[in-house]
């Protein structure tokens, strides 16, 4: 239906960028280097348009149809569910969303939690859903960065944050009390692109899927 048959894919800046470029290259979809993309933000290469955007913006580009496909961490999808299709687990960028409390704290399992758990997080929606599923009341403080600091200065009892190795947590005197979920990079697709430009979009999806399966 679209006038052009070029497939566009939104990929995130930050921690997932190098993994995203690697999987695109391994799938034979496009070879790009981070420097080139960082300068131009938008590169057309062998029938594919690659758009570099902030991680949390990937679903917006895909849901609106500005990009047919997107590569994004599952943590972002938990926080901002949309109308896209989640197609492939790309199996890189693995990390966990955890509830962490100060080392010195007596807090552990739910039975030790205060009646109203004060939590700082960049993931208020996901954290709220999780606490609700636990049947526990939580007061969520939305922060935009340096979440690890919040318990040390007495702002909150604990934090809900993403961790890959746990190092940042231990460096800040925090330990993991519970795991909310495991996140990896996902391939998402616009609902209309899959239907109106099936062949072109499916071909990119299949190549990425194969590249991931071959690497297992």
């Amino acid at each position, binding site marked *: 239906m679209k006038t052009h048959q070029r497939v566009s894919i939104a990929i995130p800046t930050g921690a997932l960028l190098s993994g995203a470029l690697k999987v695109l290259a391994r799938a034979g979809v496009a070879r790009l280097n981070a420097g080139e993309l960082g300068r131009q933000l938008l590169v057309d290469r062998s029938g594919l348009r690659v758009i570099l955007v902030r991680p949390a913006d990937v679903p917006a580009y895909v849901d609106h*149809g500005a990009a047919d496909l997107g590569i994004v961490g599952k943590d972002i999808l938990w926080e901002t569910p949309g*109308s896209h*299709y989640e197609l492939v687990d790309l199996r890189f960028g693995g990390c966990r969303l955890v509830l962490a409390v100060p080392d010195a704290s007596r807090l552990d399992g739910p039975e030790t939690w205060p009646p109203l758990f004060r939590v700082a997080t960049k993931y208020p929606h996901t954290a709220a859903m999780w606490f609700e599923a636990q049947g526990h009341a939580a007061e969520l403080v939305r922060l935009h960065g340096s979440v690890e600091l919040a318990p040390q200065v007495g702002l909150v009892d604990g934090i809900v944050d993403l961790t890959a190795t746990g190092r940042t947590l231990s460096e800040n005197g925090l330990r993991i009390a519970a795991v909310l979920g495991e996140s990896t990079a996902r391939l998402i697709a616009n609902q*209309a692109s899959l*239907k*109106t430009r*099936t062949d072109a979009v499916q071909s990119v999806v299949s190549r990425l899927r194969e590249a991931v399966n071959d690497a297992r």
Partner: protein
Amino acid sequence: MPGFRDLLPAEAEVLREAQESLLAEMRRWGYRHVITPLVEGMDVLQLGLGGEQRRRLFKFADGRGEVVALVGERTVPVARLVAGKLRAAPLPLRLCYSGPVLSTDAGRFQQRRETYQVGAELIGAPGPVADAEVIALAARCLEAAGIRRYQVDVGHAEFFHGIMDAVKLPAEVKAAVRAALAARDFVALEALLERTPLRSAEHELLLRFPALRGGPEILEAAGGLVRNRRSELALAELGQVRELLVTHGLGGVVNLDLGALRDFDYYTGVIFEGYGPELGRPVAQGGRYDGLLARFGRPAPATGFMVQLDLVAEMLTHASRPPALPRLDAAIAWSGDGLGTALRLGATLRLFGMRAVVDTESRGSGEARAWWHAVGAVNLIHCRGESTVSWTPRGSRMRRLPPEQVAGRLAAGLS
């Protein structure tokens, strides 16, 4: 207020025109127009809507303490009408409607809580002929509204129900499979099915059915995979509907989509979605809902669809050649004792179907030209007396002529 907005003439007139075209097409197919209220009692809406839809309603208590809500869709009110005030009307009934619908949920990106829907319902007719009629009507409606390139994806809710019946999975895994599909999360779906030890044809089908899209050949491909009666009947029906749509002259725009994921608790048969160019969402959607009317006490098969009017308008205004807004034909200024002539000339032009504005105050020729430009009309006609008027078409020189000659030339399209 977030999610609510004003539509200015550039949008509002396109939207209104599209609405008229859609309703006119529905009337050409014999659908009668009904208007249901913006407010419905919760007792009515509760009968027809799922939990998630109910949650998104704007609810409040009216003066008598009854809980009422602003409608979030308009099929349920039509069902209430058919089972209530229209219960003596013989079936099948063909009804159409138009109006705003409201949602407390602004949506993450769209930020719209008030949208406009135009819809049609065919109530009391079972089977593929009725299914095909409604799909064909939806397609012709999109054309009538001015959307030249579009496609319609047709699927069947029973195909999925048949697979879910036949697949051997614990109840809680089945529930998780439904939840994953509702969230369009195929990663979760694969993970769920990978963990189950029992493998069957239906397992494979659950993983593959979302990709079963295309022409009539996919019916055969799917037929080779299914081993249950319910899905087989769905495929047979889908094949009939497709053939009927070819006869309707729509073979070129119809795709079969066995992976269409919709509200499966509501839809009971053939379902479809219409897509336009360059828009990330379906612009029309509908299907068969044979269970709804029974909840209102008048069991009847039913099928229908609605068009998202604001998406249609958006598509039209963003097209490479947006529809020309109806222009204002004449700005009629006057001075001295020219008011009578101006009013009569305005009436004459409108009789010929032209758009004419008569000034509310007397102006000299310089001021009249400024007013003409502000109004944005094609012609300026300045009336100073009864016998002659000064007529200036845009981009031409001014001429003095008797008013009836100006009217005659404008009506004939001359300048």
